[in-house]
């Protein structure tokens, strides 16, 4: 067992974890944040994507112990405390970027990182940027539109400031 301390969506947690525990299972089973989900066992689907110190990573591909000391952001921390949706969530809602919603947490977290890295992406760059995240329902069209709209909203926000 190893002791780790992490911040998840602004809350600090200290836990004993088995060295073999994957970050996604730690988040789901120990921290109790079930918003982040598992879709595969080969790190292909991206459903488990979270932000670790601002970088989007597939939380099934790292161990919980590797996240010791890290700041982790999950889908559950995106919306404001009063429930106001984060602009990326709002964009997915308005552009029908989800159907069953299973891929959605990973898509949202990946999109946040993608737009941070490339604030003015083209449609092709959005598609490329999402290539590690699978969605079986939407055919990606709503998702791509949502990310384009979100990047625009994020730029407008910058300008407005």
């Amino acid at each position, binding site marked *: 067992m190893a002791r780790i301390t992490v911040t998840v969506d602004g809350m600090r947690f200290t836990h004993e974890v088995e060295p073999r525990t994957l970050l996604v299972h730690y988040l789901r089973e120990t921290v109790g944040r*079930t918003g982040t989900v598992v879709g595969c066992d080969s790190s292909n689907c991206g459903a488990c994507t979270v932000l670790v110190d601002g970088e989007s990573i597939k939380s099934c591909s790292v161990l919980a112990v590797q996240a010791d000391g890290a700041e982790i952001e999950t889908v559950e921390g995106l919306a404001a405390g009063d429930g106001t949706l984060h602009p990326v969530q709002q964009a997915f809602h308005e552009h029908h970027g989800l159907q069953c919603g299973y891929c959605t947490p990973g898509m949202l977290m990946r999109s946040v990182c993608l737009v941070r890295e490339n604030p003015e992406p083209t449609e092709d760059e959005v*598609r490329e940027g999402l290539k590690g995240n699978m969605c079986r*329902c*939407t055919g990606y069209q709503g998702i791509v539109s949502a990310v384009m709209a979100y990047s625009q909203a994020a730029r407008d926000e910058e300008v407005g400031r």
Partner: protein
Amino acid sequence: MSTAPDAPSAQDERTPEIGRARLRREDERALTGRTRWTDDMTLPGMLHLSVLRSPVAHASITELDTTEAARAPGVVGVWTGEDLPEQGAMPTAWTVSDDMRTPPYFPLSVGSVKHVGDIVAVVAATSKEAADDALELIDVDYDELPVVVDPMVAKQEGSPLVHPDLGTNVCATWGLDSVTLGTGGDAAAAIREAESDPDQVVVRRTLRQNRVTPAYIEPRSIVVDPTAEQVTMWSATQVPHIVRILMAMTQPIEEHELRVVAPDVGGGFGGKLQFTREEALVLLIARRLRLPCKYTESRSESMQSSHHARDQVQELTLAARRDGTITALDVDLTADMGAYLGILTAGIPLLGGFMFNGIYRIPAYSFHCTDVFTNKTMTDAYRGAGKPEATFGIERMMDELAVELDLDPIEVRRRNWIRPEEFPYATVAGLTYDSGNYDRATDKALAMFGYDELRAEQRRRREAQDPVQLGIGVCTFVELSGLAPSRVLGGLNYGSGGWEHSTIRMLPTGKVEVVAGTTSHGQGHATAFSQIVSDELGIPFEDIVLISGDTASAHKGMDTYGSRSLVVGGMAIVGAARKVVEKARPIAAHMLEASTDDLEFVGGKFSVKGTTSGVTIQEIMLSTWLAHDLPDGLEPNLDADYTFDPENFSYPTGTHLAAVEVDTQTGRVTVRDYVCVQDVGVLVNPMIVDGQVHGGLTQGIAQALYEEIQYSDEGQLTSGTLADYLVPAAPDVLRYRTDTTVTEATTNVLGVKAVGETGATAAPPAIVNGVLDALRPLGVTDITMPCTPSKVWTAIDDARRANKGQVTA
């Protein structure tokens, strides 16, 4: 015509909800991570199950020793088939023919395994890790047996037998013939005649449907809590009602003892239309241990054991006159069942049998199908279920006919399709298409696509011998949706009705609960159904909530598959809503001191005709609950329920056009443009319709270009993870250009058709026709799906060699 103004009548000031692209009310929970998937659940004392799956395709089990596993840390129990005598055989719901053979199929295999992933033991432990670890300690000796993976080989005499006791690999044979149906002539005779008639042509092709899998992203998961009076099962299923009844009919539990809940469920596409062995196992073990148990499949387990689909060999013969008019169609189908029969397995190819004629006037038709067992995972429903296979067959043949006659592929279709004035149209396969207008959708699609310009570009590229060739793929399709009239299903020996049920519960504060027997797993039922009820009752959208997916609250239903939620389930809701209005009418009359005949109900309000006085249905809800002053003898209750049994299927149609670029040096296929115009009748929520179309198209394109479940000759699954089974990601697909035309369905009051399966049905032939259209000048005449770069390149290379041979000869 009178010029006198009509008496003033109640005006509906509401904007109709039907037709409005309302944003989905389902979204917020999913966007904020507050969904509840089955695997999210933890119950006090809950144990975790893992199952041991066969690594070999066919073997008898000579030894199975679980002693060591049972002693491993955290392990509570280990069971094999022999340790579980109470397990019942897994059911199949579709006995397609009297001679159909149903092999033994149990939650835990007894004595032998029939495919990679077959289940041989189950472990219960205090953690998933402990259960997984213990699997490694189970000792199994497999005595391997001969394997058969190719259905064409399997059906031959003397091939290895999947179930030796059955004495054959043929599961069932089934056919349709226009002579016996009385719908047309003798196809075999017509084809013979065409062969010796210089004015006719006969086109023969053997086409292959690749084996694919629904590949929902949420793995299946099951939790069973046996600790209350009713045992509760949560399952990531499309079909909680079907699971409950089949569990009760086959396993040691009574129907009233079991409640099945489908909480948030991801994807589906037919993949979660199954009563699974894992569901039975979790129930059996939880009841034995009297503790809650959970099982969640891994992705690799899902690839091995959740059902696959398609996997057919189609031998097609089409005869036509030289002007393009079809004279006969004969279909000889060999369909791979895999090793066992799931709920619908044997019925899937049969559904296709009704649709091989497509949208065309075909005077003679015969269809014969052989269902065959192989040492592979069973096949069952996947988006479209039988119809995409049939559509592929006929739409590929229409292109072959066009080539044979040197006609434009659109033109050859036009010369054969059913004309608008011919509806309702009785097809050669015995169905009645209620409505359709293929010209309208096709003309619109051709204009959007820029068909003529693209043909011109294609010519230029051909002449310039451009290494990247352009192909234009066409598919004009019709779907058979919304399973469907119970009488018809009975005639096909399908072990279920086709009705759907709804209850509308009118609450005293003016709010409404709509209880539906269908369950949503991404289709937006809560939004679309609320829109329908809002219009029917004149109650604000926000005042309506949907309850579904739980046999305790939605006690009757046939669940969600085959695009039946709107066209069948939606009509049950409409029926219930209209009953509510009729129940409210005498109360309104009493409140307004008027006669019921003088009342009209518009926009949620009963008014006395010609006056402005009225009472809203929401006011009536409160007065009914108070029941202080109701007409004599009236039940103080506005709730209503309705069971709708459709009189016909629903037939969405459309035209799909694909522009594909094929790099002749690498074999790479790129879809450059995709246009589809679909006619799905009245649109309830155009945004949801678009989403369904996009998702379906992507799956269809994936079948054509990327996806294939592959087995080695030894029956090893070589596409067992998402790393080698290529589900497309965002860069692999394009932005589709979609539009609709509206020809109302005449078989339901809303005029709606269905939409969920159309994209997956039409896209594969559109893409493959496009690839072949690009490559025909090089001598390529067929490529089997998926058209991967290596396959395309090989086809080009083979054609070049063959051509060279001819030139030098």
